[in-house]
Structures are given as structure tokens and as C-alpha cells.
């Protein structure tokens, strides 16, 4: 009788370990996949930039500086490679540069009406969305992973099984997105 009880307890513990381990592995892989997805979308943006530059080059003869800034930012972002901090900084530069291109393009009615420009604008804004959604998905996955890692029964074994805390993807505090808009009356 005693042995049956002991056996049952051991079996329960083993089952718990198996389930916990598998669940955590699933969530961790989801986190990794989500991280990869951000990279995919950033690359997509890099691929779109030459098209954009070509499409607007003819119209923006006098705004060479804006276009150069985009090209430089893109080159810097590609050069940054896997260095997360520098990469994030460079990508923020790309975002800024792209915004200024579209802001400048607003002043050119012909360009604004051009079919090519419209579809490029859609592609780029969609890419911005994708980057944002990829980050969001990454952060959601991380939250799910961290929660399941740190909640009660799992927290006892998660560390021992080698599941580390994952950091959220946060915008740099100095990034322009985080700047508080100044309202003046």
C-alpha cells in the first residue's frame, strides 16, 4: 500500500515535470520565433527603401538631403547587424528618415497622386505596422512565457530546467516615439 502511494506521488511529479517542461519549451520557442519575425520585417523595410528612393528621386531634385539621410540610415542599420542596441538606434533613424521623406513628399502634388508613390506608401506603412505588430507579438509571447515561468508550480523547477527570464522589447527612452509632445497655448 505504501509503495503504491509513493509510486503514485512519483508518477505525478514526473508527469508534472514533463508537462511543465514541454509547455515552457513551447512558449520559449514562440518567443524566439517572434523575435525572428521582427528581424524579418526590418529586413523587408530595408528592401523597400531603394524602391522608394528611385520612385521619388525624379521629383525631389531639391531635397537630396532627405533621401541621402534615408539611404545612410539604411546602410547604418544593415551594418549594425546583430548588435541589438546599435541596431535599434539605427532602425529608429530609418523610421525618422522615412517619415521626413513622406512629409516632404506631401508638398509635391504630382508625387502625392502618383500611383507608384501611393502603393509604396502603403507598403512602407504596412511594413511599419508589421514591425509594430511583430514587437507586440514578441512582447505578448514574452509576457506569456514569463508568466508561466514565474507562476507557482512551475517556478519551483523552471530555473533548474534552464528557463531564463526574457526581457521585453522596449523602445529606447530617448527615442522620438517616447518623447512627450510639447503642447503650447
Amino acid at each position: 500500500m505504501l509503495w503504491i502511494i509513493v509510486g503514485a506521488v512519483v508518477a505525478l511529479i514526473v508527469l508534472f515535470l514533463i508537462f511543465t517542461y514541454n509547455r515552457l519549451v513551447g512558449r520559449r520557442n514562440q518567443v524566439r520565433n517572434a523575435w525572428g519575425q521582427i528581424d524579418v520585417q526590418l529586413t523587408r523595410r530595408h528592401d523597400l527603401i531603394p524602391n522608394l528612393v528611385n520612385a521619388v528621386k525624379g521629383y525631389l531634385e531639391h531635397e537630396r538631403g532627405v533621401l541621402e539621410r534615408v539611404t545612410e540610415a539604411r546602410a547604418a542599420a544593415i551594418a549594425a547587424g546583430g548588435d541589438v542596441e546599435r541596431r535599434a538606434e539605427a532602425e529608429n533613424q530609418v523610421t525618422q528618415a522615412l517619415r521626413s521623406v513622406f512629409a516632404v513628399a506631401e508638398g509635391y502634388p504630382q508625387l502625392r497622386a502618383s500611383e507608384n508613390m501611393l502603393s509604396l506608401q502603403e507598403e512602407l506603412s504596412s511594413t511599419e505596422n508589421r514591425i509594430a505588430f511583430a514587437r507586440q507579438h514578441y512582447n505578448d509571447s514574452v509576457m506569456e512565457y514569463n508568466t508561466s515561468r514565474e507562476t507557482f508550480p512551475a517556478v519551483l523547477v523552471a530555473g533548474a530546467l534552464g528557463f531564463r527570464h526574457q526581457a521585453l522589447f522596449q523602445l529606447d527612452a530617448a527615442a522620438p516615439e517616447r518623447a512627450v509632445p510639447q503642447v503650447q497655448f
Partner: protein
Amino acid sequence: MSQCTQCGLFNPPLGVTCLSCGSTLAVPAASAVMAPLPGMPAGGPSPLAAPEPTLSPGPSRQEEYSHILGPVDRESFFAAQRRHRRATWKMTAACALAAVVTGLPLSLALTPIIFAVIVILTRLAGFVTTVPVEVWDAYRWAGSTFVRVGDYFIEEEMQGPAPIAETLAVAAIWLVPGILLMLLVWPILRSLFRSAGVGGVLLSLGARDPNMLDLEERQLVNVVEEMAIAAGLPAPRVMLLDAPVANAAVVGSSPRDAVIVVCRPLLDDLNRDETQGVLGHLIAAIGNGDLRVALSVVALFQTFGFAGALLRAPVSREARQTLWRMLRYVFSRHPPAKRAEEAQRISGLLTGAVWDLGSDEFGEGMDEKPVEQRRGLRVIWLMYLPVITMAILVVGLIMEWPREGFTIIFGVLGALALATLWYQRVYVAFMIRYAIATVRAVIMLPYYFGVIMPQLLLGMVIPFILEPLLGLLWRTRRYLADARAVQLTRNPDGLAYGLRGLVTRGGGIPGGKWATPLFIVCPERLSYAQIDPEMAEEMRENRQRFRPGVIGDAQAMREQARGAGVKMVAQAIAEGKSESRSYTGSTTGSLGGLHPPLHKRLKRLRSMGATAPGSEERARIDAGYSRRFGWLMAIVGGGLLTLVAVLMVVAAALMLAMGFVACSVMMMMVYGLVIALAPA
């Protein structure tokens, strides 16, 4: 925060009159918030922050919020998802239970047939190899136990101790084979029709790939891909349907082969944020596994239909045709679109067979119109033939006629009889058919009852128990997908305005009723015309737009639909009538429908931060009714409902009892078969 134009006081957001001077507050138009943001990520994902309620767009009419006493109860989309997911689990369990209960009477009737087949096969096997005696002994044991238990309950009127073990054994013998068969058929049917997917025939209505040169369609593809990224799913394929109504659906059987079908007018009617919300719902549905659920439910009904068709095959030509068609489908090698059509048609036949008893051959020939006899020689005189013969024999023997005399007289009589039969051959043929039908009906009677009873019972259980539960489950899953869509887009207003826009545009379902569950909205049962003047105006305008003359291709759609073998509601849609009820064929629908009403969806979205105005009026009227007539409704309605429920339970019990008796007669016949076939 709205500033009073009269006294300049800043009022709290939901007020409609100024707190200081009482004058009506000017409020910004609700649509102002919905201006699309060019080049900006919609909803600006900031993942962990709960959505901040936007306060600016207030009520557009004075009464709009007057019944809301306090702020809306807030709920984060994570909490909402957890809540709806828990509800989903409970309802799934309830549905599973209801499905089992529904399947029991069917298995009662199926089991004798399975046993009969097994017994006959065993006998046939006996010709080829030697069947161990124990097998026949087991059959005999099962049969005799059945009889003993039956005797105990029927004839001896339950004297002596109840044979519990034996009763359990009989219950197992009686129920398990049928249940096993259905449990086996269910996944087979599921995978069989999987290739067609749920609603695959929608694609055969003329769905096309998006045109990437069209900016709107390109944007649609982008939005779908964005949402797929947000959900961490592979991007589903997008197809467009040139239907006259705005709606969107997801079809397929799993996240891998899901296809999003969007009716083209949706792109014209909704802006990017709204489209994003709507597609977020569909992608969320894919991620939550709604396609799998839909497939399982359809397969469940197909299983019941299959069991019904199997039962009725001996007495119904239609059932035999359905089974034959299914067999042909299994081995057919058609292109996917054609296969999907065929699958849809067979599925319709099967699900229709669940309780549609159709025409059967029971009594066929008996209800035939009697054929008139022709003038002249009537068959009736043949009745006197034996008497006449006897009379002639007696007279002839007494009068000592010669042998030739008898021969001549009987020859003439015989020739006359044959001539009569030939002359009245049509009538005679009728009589023979009638006699055969009568004999067959008498022989088939227990079988017929055994088959009909479970099906009648199903006809009661399915629409009143199983379908409402499934509807409830599906509606909860809609709420779940709505909450998930808010998590994906972080923009509850996008979905709220999207849903509102689609519903006010009629929310017609292209492709027939069966596709209803797959679509994001369905025609509202209640006419908003009486309730919400603003929405009514919108609906009227849209109705003008959807005149058949304006659309032009409604006819084409009808043709296509007919080609696809689908009962089409295109006519209704084209003429601007929304359907009054929202159910699809026999698989779904009934009490409450499959889609939550708009005002309930909007209410939940508002609690997640949406500001879309909507059908508060509807809710207010509901509340008013329940205040004024609530007690009356409760007494009268409750009493009536209880009465109906009691009557139905009694009827169901009676049917179950009759079916029980009929099925046990079938079991006895199988036992007779065992005794007849068993080697000595």
C-alpha cells in the same frame, strides 16, 4: 471632456447636459475619431498598457447615454479572453454531453443491425474456416441474457432481486457497438470532408485572388499579413468575392489551409482601421481553432446523418442513394473545387437525413391509387370459380357425364378464367403489388419502428437541446475572437465600427445559409429601423444601393450558386431584404442564432475601451420592456415554456419507450437469427 458653449464649464465626458447651466452640450461627431492615420501604425501597439479609453467622441443624440448610470465596467482584453475561454470549455463539455445523449437512441437502433451483420458474417466464415464453438456460445449467451433481462422487466413485473450485473451487461451489449461505430465514423467523416474544408464551396462561388494593382486589395492583403504577424500565425490566403454585400469569412480546416474570403464591397465601405479590426477577428478565430470546432460540429451532424441513412437504407431509396454517392465521393478523383462542391452536397444530404425522414418504401404500393377494373369480364367471378367447379362436378357425377364432357366444360372454364386475368391484367398486377407491399410492410414493421423512433427523437433533441447549446458555444467563441482581435489590433474601436458598419449595411451572407457561422456578422434579426433612427437611415440608404438593377450581377451569382448546388439567398440579398432568421441549413441555428447581436458585441468592446456608439437604444428598449412587462412575461412565458417543456419530455419519453420496444424486437430477431444459423 466637453466644454459648455454657454457657461464655459468643463463637464465630465459622458454627460449630455451641462452640469452648471443645463444646456445641451455640443459633442464632436463620433466619426471624427475614425479618420484613418496615413502611414501610421494603427492602434500604436504599446503591448502591456491597457487600452486607454478615448473620451472625445460622445453620444450623437441627447438620449444616447441617458440610461447609463455609471461608467462602463472595464475589462482588459486578457481578462475578457480568459473569461470567454473558461466559458468555452464549459460549453464544449455541455455540447459533448448533449451529443452523446443525442447519439444514444441512434446506437440503440444501430446495434441490432451491426449484430445481424456480424452473425451473418460469422456464418459465412464458417463455410471457409472453422469458427470456434465458443463464438456461437457467446452469441447465444448474449441473446439469452437479453431475453432473461427483458423477461424480468416485462413479464415477471420485477419480482425477485434485480439482476444488476446482467442488466448492465445487456446495456453494454446494446449500446456499445452503436456508440463505437459512431465514434469510428466521426473522425473518418471529419477527415473525409476535411479536404473540402468548412465552407469550401464558398470558393466555388467565384472567389478570386486579389488584384495587386488595385490599391485597396493590396491594402487588404497587407492588413491580413499584419494581423497574422500580430497573432504569430502563418499568413492565410486571401480571396475576394464579388458579391453585392459587405462581409468577410474564414474557411478551411486548420491554420495551415485557412482562406480568408472578403466580399469586395467591404473594402469600399470600411476604412483601414475598421478592416483591420474585422480581419483581426477572423485571424483570431483561426488562432483560437474555430475552424477545427466548426469541422467537428459539421462532422458530428454528418455522423448522425450517416447513422440515420444506414438505418434507413433497407427501407428508403434516398438513403441508399446518399450512401452510394458518399462511396463514389470517397473514390473520386476530381479537382479540389469540384470535390468541395460534391462534399458540400453530400454533407447537405447527410445532415438533411438526420431527421428529414424523406420518402421511404414502407407501405410503397399500399398507398397506390387502386386501378379500376375494365368493363366486361370482372375478376370477381373467379371467386365463384371453385363453387362453380364443385357444382359442375357434383351435377356431372350424378348425371354420369362422359369424360369428354368434363374436359370440354373445364377447358372452357379455364380458358375463360385465363382470359379474364389477361383482360384485367392491369388490375391483377395492381393486386399482386398490393399484396406484396402488405406482406413486406408487416414483416418490416418492427424494423421500421425501430428506425423511425430514434430519428423522431433526434428531431426533437437536436433543435431543442443540441443546437441551442452549439449556438451558445459559437456565440461565446465570437466574443472570444472579438477580445483576441482587440489584443491583436489594440484598437477596440476599429472592430466596433467595423462590425457596426457591416451590420448596418445588411450583413447579408453570400453563398447561402450554410455558410453563416463562418462570417463575421449576420443579418440582424431585429430591424433597427424601429429603434435607432440613425442606423435605420443608414440601412435605408444601403438598401437603395443594393437594388437588383444597380447590382446587375445578382443574377450571375444566383446562377453560380445554383451550379454549386447551394440553396441561395442571393435573391433576398440582392433585393435588400435581410434574412429574418440566421440559421444555416440543419447543422446550426435555432434559438438565438450563431452570432451575438450587435449591441452585445459592442457592449463588450466598449468595456475593452471602444467608444463606438451603437445600439444603446436597443438595450434601453430591452430594459424598458423587462421593467414594464418583465413580471408578466416571466409568469406567462415561464408557464408556457414549462408546459411545452413538460409536453416535450413526455412525448420524448413515449417515443423513447416505443423505440425501445421496437429495437428490442429487432434484437430478438437477431437472437432468432443466431439460433437459426448456429450449427447444432
